[in-house]
Structure formats: C-alpha cells, structure tokens
C-alpha cells in the first residue's frame, strides 16, 4: 500500500533533498576522488554480504542479518532515482522523433499516449480508485472508475500483449529448429538424431514404437534389451549426455561469476568502470 499523509510526504521530500545533496556532492568532487568514493562504497556493500554470509549463524541469523531490509532499501532508492532518468530518456527520444516526424513517428504517439494513460490511471488506482473517470453517456457506455480503467489497460491490454508476444516464440522455435536441423555437418546430424530421439521418446506414439521390448524377462528378471526402448534412450541422452555437459558449463560459469565479482568488489577491474586513473 502506498503511504499517505503529511508525515509520509515530508519524509519523501527529506529523502529527495538528501539524495540530491549526495549527487551534487559527487558531481562536484574531483574525478579521482569520485572514483575512490565509488570504489569504497562498492567494497563496503560487498563486505556486508560477505560478513553476513561467513559470520556464524547458529539459529540461521547473525547480528548482520537484521540489516538486510535496510541494505535492500538503499538499492531500491538508487533504483527509483534511475527510473526517473530512464523515463526522461524514453520520453525525450520519442518527443524528438515526433517533432522531427522521423519514420515511425506514429509509434511514438502510441507510446506517449500509453505512457501518460498508464501513469495517470496507475496513480489514481493507488490513491483514488473509486474516482469516476468516464461518466455514463446515454446508452453508449456506463461510467468507469479509475480502478476499472487501470484494470482495462493493465490486464486487458499490457498482460494480453505480453502473452501474445510469448506465444510467438512457438513459431520462432519452428523456424530456428528448421535451420539447426538441416544436415549440413556431422554435428548438425548428431543434433538432429538426438533431438529426434528425445522428441519421439517423449510422446505416446514414440513409446508405442518400442513397446514390444518388455522390461522384464519371462523369469521376472530385468530385460537388458529394455535399454533400447526409445523412452529409455531419450532419458539416457538427457541424463547421461545432456546433464553432464550442462553441469560442465555451469562450473565454468560459476567460477567466472566468482572471479568477476571479486574483481568488481576489490576494484581490480581496469575497464569501463574503474580505469587506470584510480
């Protein structure tokens, strides 16, 4: 629930003033000092999480665990400032497109109208959901309140458009699979064969093809030929071939993540963020 009342807005204003003061201070600081400040706070942030993890926590919590909402809140504050910058950049870009009538300016109108409508009805939905926004006009349409309009735009528009985009992936999978499975090389042929076995082994039609191979012999013991049932071959491919390969990749990725995190945390990185001036 959003906050209300003078005290809430007073705290909000105080927070804004403090944040702008910090930003102004950072902007005014010499470039070298600014980088040291950023490196220091990066280290401090990482140190908190490292200490919180390594300090013994017999009951599942230690003396640092309680500060996690505060640290998460700091991240949210920085994020909320950045949203303003992102929105500014987006609106500026589309206003420029519109003012110069660049190709596709019609899309900019759609975006700006949608943006204003979602913002207005989104805020009204939080603070005044029962306010009438569209009055009843004869027998044409009934009155609509802010909550109804927001639901119409969000659930009726945005959510459905998202679902429609998601469903398009099915067609893209078909076209990508067509290209991937063309038998151009040994690797593509192996991929095609493996995919075919896994797909056929996952449907009842496929399992019916090898249903004649019984899992048990007449004396009740395991039938070794049952390994050749298509669903068993598919399972073997998934568990004994695919999973180890994926785990190998995951080992590399996790070590890469650890190394990169260490470089950022300790400001060892010499790249776009902490260059040689530091």
């Amino acid at each position, binding site marked *: 629930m959003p906050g209300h009342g003078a005290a809430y807005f007073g705290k909000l204003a105080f927070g804004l003033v403090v944040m702008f003061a910090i930003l102004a201070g950072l902007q005014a600081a010499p470039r070298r000092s600014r980088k040291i400040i950023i490196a220091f706070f990066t280290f401090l942030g990482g140190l908190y999480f490292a200490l919180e993890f390594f300090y013994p926590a017999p009951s599942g919590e230690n003396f640092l665990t309680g500060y996690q909402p505060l640290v998460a809140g700091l991240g949210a504050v920085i994020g909320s400032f950045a949203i303003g910058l992102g929105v500014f950049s987006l609106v500026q870009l589309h206003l420029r497109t519109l003012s110069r009538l660049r190709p596709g300016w019609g899309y900019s109108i759609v975006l700006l109208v949608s943006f204003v409508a979602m913002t207005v009805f989104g805020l009204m939905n939080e603070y005044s959901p029962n306010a009438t926004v569209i009055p009843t006009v004869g027998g044409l349409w009934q009155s609509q309140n802010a909550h109804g309009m927001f639901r119409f735009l969000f659930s009726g528009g945005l959510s459905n458009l998202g679902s429609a985009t998601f469903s398009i992936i099915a067609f893209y999978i078909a076209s990508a699979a067509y290209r991937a499975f063309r038998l151009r090389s040994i690797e593509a042929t192996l991929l095609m064969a493996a995919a075919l076995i896994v797909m056929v082994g996952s449907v009842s039609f496929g399992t019916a093809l090898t249903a004649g191979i019984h899992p048990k012999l007449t004396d009740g013991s395991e039938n070794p030929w049952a390994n050749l049932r298509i669903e068993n071959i598919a399972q073997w491919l998934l568990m004994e071939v695919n999973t180890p390969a994926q785990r190998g990749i995951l080992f590399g990725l996790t070590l890469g993540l*650890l190394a990169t995190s*260490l470089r950022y945390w300790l400001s060892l990185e010499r790249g776009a963020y902490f260059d040689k001036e530091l």
Partner: protein
Amino acid sequence: MQHASENWWVSGLVVLLSLIIIGKVLSAQRGRVPFIRRIPGLNAIDEAVGRATEMGRPVMMVPGISGLDVVTLQALSIFSYVARAVARFGNKSIMATIDPIVTGVAEETLRDAYADAGRPELFEEGDVRYLTGQQFAFATGVAGILIREKVAASFLFGAFYAESLIFAEVGQQVGAIQVAGTTQTNQIPFLIAACDYVVIGDEFYAASAYLSRDPTLLGSIVGQDYCKLLLLGIILIGIISTSLLTLIHGGPVAHLLHTLVDFLKVK
C-alpha cells in the same frame, strides 16, 4: 538465508577458490601475463561491425534483461569494446535496455568508448534506449528496432530468458550477423540455432580479458582455470572413492572411503 556455518567445507572451498583467483590476478599484475586461447565468437566482432559499416546500417547491442548485476556489467564491458570498434569504423550503434539503472551505466560506457576511440561526436543521447521494464514488451521493442533500423550486426550478451529467441530470430530475419553469449544455459541452444557465433559458458566471462588483453583480467582467467583443475581433482577423488566402495565392503579402507565420500557430498 544461507550461511557459511551451514556447510563450512563448501564455504572454505569458496574462500580457497577466491584466494587462487586473487593470487593469479596479483601475479599477472606483476608482469606474469599468461596466454589464452582463441575464441572465434569474439574474433567475429570486428568482422560484424565492419560488415555493418559497409552496408551503411547500424549495430545493435542488448545487455540482457536483468538489472545491474555482475552479468550485465560483464556484458557492458564487452559492449565497451564493440562500441570502440563501431566508433573506429565511424558507424552508429544502438543499445536497448530494460533497466533504468543499466541505462545510465550503459550511456557512460558507450560515451567513454567513443571518446577512447577518438570519435566522441558520434555518440548521441538516443543511442542507449530504455524501452520498458516488462520482459515481452522489451522483446517487442527490440524486435521493432531491429526491423525499423535495418540493423546489420546484432550483439546479444547478458542474461536472457524466454525472449532470447525473439531477438535472435528477428535478427536472423533482417539479415544481421549475430554474436551472442549468455549465462543462462537453457537459452544457449536457441542462440546456437539462430546466431552466427555464440560464446559458451565461461567464455562469456573470459570475453573482456580476451578483448582487452588486460593483465588483471588475463590473470583472473588463469585463476579460474586453476580452480577448475582443483574442482576436477575433487570430482575425480569422489568418483574413484565411490567406485572403490563397490569393490571393498569392510575394513579400515572402506571406512576411510566412506568418510571421504560423506565429506565430499554436498549437504
């Protein structure tokens, strides 16, 4: 919340791996610069940017759909190199972002890259575009840019999920040369099917070292390889011990092997 005290063995291993990586970084900074192998996907960056320039069409970059985390920072680090190449060729680049914080960092990254290449005037405010915070609205936005701007080279680096195939297939449809890399192993097959070059697994993290040849980054890559050897050793000990346990059923050796296998098991 997870804590080290729940499993000191794994936590100690993390500390050991960290020390190995830091040790190799410091060693490389002191002048012991190692060699790293060729990564074809990253060699293709200049080729893709050059081709886009010849065609007079822009280059597109998408740093995934997560917020400002290590994966996105790594993607931006790669894009810094791509942007330098774009600036060198005098072409135009577009970066689409889903997170407003990433937008700010991306703008600074691209601005610095253009300045480093000696072409700061080529960077325009609208080159980095914050589109939306919604996954599929973002996918639609990126697809729209790819089609409207007739992008000739598309770089997809970062954390991608279900939308990865939309980016890659639309890029394929507009005839863009595509280079991709993601930390999401489930999306790698889709990218391989639709892109021209894909960096797989830890090549994603090795990219900035490979492109910049910075000793710190190269040292970190070698540190990771030593860590992999250590982990491989632990896995081998586990395999051999477990296999021997099927042959040896009693006595002090079996007891020792049981203790070792129990110790190595992740609880």
